[in-house]
């Protein structure tokens, strides 16, 4: 794992777990998604969701800045956020089906 990714992993992991949102236990998936967050931080100046297309305008992208506005309802309903970066403890224990999480962002919110 790259140093900058590891630093993000070690900073975000405990912080978000305390809030009830542990990382996906699949470290490879988390590593790839954290890399995506750092790419977007470099591109836009903020960690826009790696699985959604940002437009580079913080105001228009604010609902998809990670952790996005949709993490809570997605983890509540599916046990995972849209990217599967953050999950519920039950999801990690394997006691939930691993369905594809559909896009919850309203079409009206899309700035493109």
């Amino acid at each position, binding site marked *: 794992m790259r140093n900058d990714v590891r630093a993000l992993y070690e900073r975000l992991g405990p912080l978000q777990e305390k809030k009830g949102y542990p990382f996906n236990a699949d470290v490879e998936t988390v590593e790839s998604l954290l890399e995506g*967050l750092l790419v977007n931080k470099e591109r836009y100046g903020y960690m826009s969701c790696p699985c959604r297309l940002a437009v580079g305008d913080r105001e228009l992208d604010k609902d998809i800045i990670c952790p996005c506005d949709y993490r809570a309802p997605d983890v509540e309903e599916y046990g995972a956020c849209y990217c599967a970066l953050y999950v519920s403890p039950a999801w990690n224990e394997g006691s939930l089906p691993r369905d594809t999480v559909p896009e919850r962002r309203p079409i009206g919110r899309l700035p493109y």
Partner: protein
Amino acid sequence: MDQPPVKLYALSTCGHCKHTKQLLDECNVVYDCIDVDKCDAEERQAVLDEVRAVNPNCSFPTIVIGDKVIVGYKEAEIKEALGL
């Protein structure tokens, strides 16, 4: 059986898109892939119009296999649409 044309609209940073690409590569599928986040402004608009025509949510991955559209990394559906 001839493989239907396959077009994948993806984001270079998206985990589900990476899994979709891996699946297609493992199955030796010939496909056209566009990482929309890497398109310049003009190209992006044209590509987004294509995506929106088949997936109003404009979410990724969106994969078109022949005349079938699959949104999200859904391995079983993708394999079925490919006739695998």
